[in-house]
């Protein structure tokens, strides 16, 4: 309690020049602040892992394990899968269609005569590729547009906001369908298919990145350090990319884990409707589920259950990580007994640059400390 009674109003927490790094300036009121953790400790996920306690940590760890297994399957599909994704026969003849699980085909074969296990493993690779391309594309386009729109403002900002809102409100799957028609006319080979699916997904997610980055840019634009940069004579692009962008990326990891999982779902949805990737070009879980739809009525379960579970698990893993990161970043949702050591770092990880707020009436630094104190009181 006594650690935070310093009023945030007035001259602000840190005496000017008292601390070498601006990040701690705002929160010198937290006297029990731990030493700055090592570089390893400050890595995004590692930091949260240390910050989390109890169930939160359990969920985060479970998510990380599932995601790791998924990524391993995807990267080493070639060595894990016993057969190719489009392989119909081996040395002892054709696989046969709709064969129940047996030692040679542990998860059976599909109606098209493919090995289910191999296609599930190869499917992880396709999903990961689409996910990575989609996220990279949407981060670049969405972040760039959001930054430009938020920092420059004016009519461009207004037009972009209206467009982004319109797209955001639209059913994402329908938009992805339209995009995949545009890009590939509905049929696709491997790279065309992956790119088409990724771009379709990107278009859906650009508005989300756009919104987040834009609102951060609008907020940071009015900070004093941006003004200082202007006074010094820094060029607009330099301020935008060096000062504003660096400070507005705090929420990105959260959106991107959540979007990664949605990308897998959208890809599967497209595949289920017949707009995915051809079965001979790559394995895709949604396509396999579509083909298994008629199997189910005759009691053939292995063609549907395994690709379906693969989707669920990969989405579950990534979402668990994203959810945990999200909860840990939101002080209101953090556990009531959030570790004191971790709550001290709130101001550091989030964008509350100490310097600019000095002299302001408490400002954000005050709020952050209030939150931290709140946690410790309970």
């Amino acid at each position, binding site marked *: 309690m006594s650690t935070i009674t310093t009023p945030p109003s007035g001259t602000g927490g840190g005496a000017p020049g008292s601390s070498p790094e601006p990040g701690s300036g705002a929160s010198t009121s937290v006297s029990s602040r731990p030493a700055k953790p090592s570089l390893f400790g400050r890595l995004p996920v590692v930091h949260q892992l240390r910050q989390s306690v109890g169930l939160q940590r359990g969920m985060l760890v479970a998510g990380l394990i599932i995601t790791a297994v998924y990524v391993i399957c995807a990267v080493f599909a070639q060595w894990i899968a016993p057969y190719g994704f489009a392989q119909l026969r081996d040395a002892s003849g054709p696989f046969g269609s709709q064969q129940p699980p047996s030692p040679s085909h542990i998860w059976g074969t599909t109606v098209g005569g493919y090995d289910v296990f191999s296609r599930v493993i190869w499917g992880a690779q396709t999903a990961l590729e689409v996910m990575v391309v989609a996220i990279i594309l949407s981060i670049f386009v969405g972040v760039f547009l959001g930054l430009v729109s938020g920092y420059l403002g004016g009519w461009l900002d207004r037009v972009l906001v209206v467009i982004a809102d319109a797209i955001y409100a*639209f*059913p994402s799957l329908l938009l992805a369908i339209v995009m995949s028609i545009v890009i590939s006319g509905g049929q696709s080979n491997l790279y065309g298919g992956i790119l088409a699916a990724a771009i379709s997904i990107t278009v859906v997610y650009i508005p989300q990145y756009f919104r987040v980055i834009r609102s951060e840019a609008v907020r940071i634009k009015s900070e004093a350090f941006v003004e200082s940069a202007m006074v010094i004579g820094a060029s607009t692009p330099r301020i935008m990319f060096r000062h504003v962008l660096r400070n507005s990326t705090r929420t990105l990891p959260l959106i991107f884990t959540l979007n990664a999982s949605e990308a897998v779902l959208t890809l599967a949805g497209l595949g289920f409707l017949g707009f995915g990737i051809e079965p001979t070009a790559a394995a895709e879980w949604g396509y396999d*589920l579509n083909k298994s739809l008629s199997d189910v009525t*005759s009691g053939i379960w292995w063609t*549907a259950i395994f690709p379906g579970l693969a989707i669920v698990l990969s989405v579950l893993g990534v*979402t668990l990580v994203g959810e945990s990161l999200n909860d840990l970043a939101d002080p209101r949702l953090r556990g009531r007994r959030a570790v004191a050591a971790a709550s001290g770092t709130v101001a550091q990880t989030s964008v509350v640059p100490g310097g600019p707020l000095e002299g302001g*009436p408490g400002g954000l630094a005050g709020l952050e400390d209030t939150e931290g104190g709140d946690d410790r009181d309970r």
Partner: protein
Amino acid sequence: MSSLISEAAPETAAESTTTFKKQRNGGGLGRYIVVRFLLIIPTIFILVTLVFFLMRLTGDPITAALGGRLNATQLQERIHAAGYDRPILVQYFEYLGQIATGNFGTSISDNRPITTILVTYGAATLELAFYALIVAFIVGIPLGLVAAYFRDKGQDAVLRVFAILCYATPVFFAGILLKLIFSVWLNVLPVAGRASTGSEFEMQDLPHTTGFYLIDAFQTGDPAVISDVLLHAVLPAVTLGLLTAGIFLRLVRTNVIGTLNTDYVDAARSRGVSEYRLVRKHAYKPALIPIITVIGLQIALLLSGAVLTESTFEWKGLGFQLAQYLGARDFVAVQGIVALLAVIVAITNFIVDVAAAIIDPRVRY
């Protein structure tokens, strides 16, 4: 810490009330509704324009639909007859004009006006969405309250994983699983469709069919038909409802926990109000307000989900038709249905926003 809050609070409170009054003087609910209504127009306009130009980038719809089946001259004739060889801007303005008069074009593969398709199949989609919302409310809100009440305990963890599972399971896989369990293995529910053929015949004989099978079934007054229709609805409704239920659960949990941390709940707690009563009486209702707003955004998700659910269960609604036309590469029909859905989404969002503004005065800014 408390001194800190009391110091900061009056300032911000006074500030917010003055700005609030200023805005209130600027206009009340009426003005908000008008402004919000006018915002629909650019939304629809942008989406329709976007879809139109995107679809035309691929070439004309006739070639896409009939490309393999006609020879070059026949194809040219059809393209010319449909006017697809004119400048794209001319086509675009003609299309806008058509939409303004409620004409969304005619499908190529089976030559039906898109508006007829909407009238025939829209009711089925609405019915499904309605059932799904009921399931979502029944499952999502109570479980969200339970999760908030037991926050950070075992029950909370189980419910949160359940919510994530609801979201992580693609609707078509959930549908296939439910089908496998309840229709094939247990054999208690029908596999697909909206009603068995017998019931459909009985309902077609009605003088005024509404397209809502439940209403039609009640019109026949035949208990067998009613139960048949309801049994057919169970699996699709649960499939689509669980998707939304997971989101409701998370939302209710987050909001109730957020409300439980507010000053007035702290005050109630210090007066000795039990934790159960705090959740049930104090934190529950304010937490429901954001849900109303979120339902608006869920409409888009619900429609995406409906497309997949309908395809899984052969539920003959708009989504099922859309999937059929996609398969037939009939892009005029796709464009029409997509544009129509855009209008539906925009109007629903408007209604939801107005409802939220009526319930919660803070929204009217």
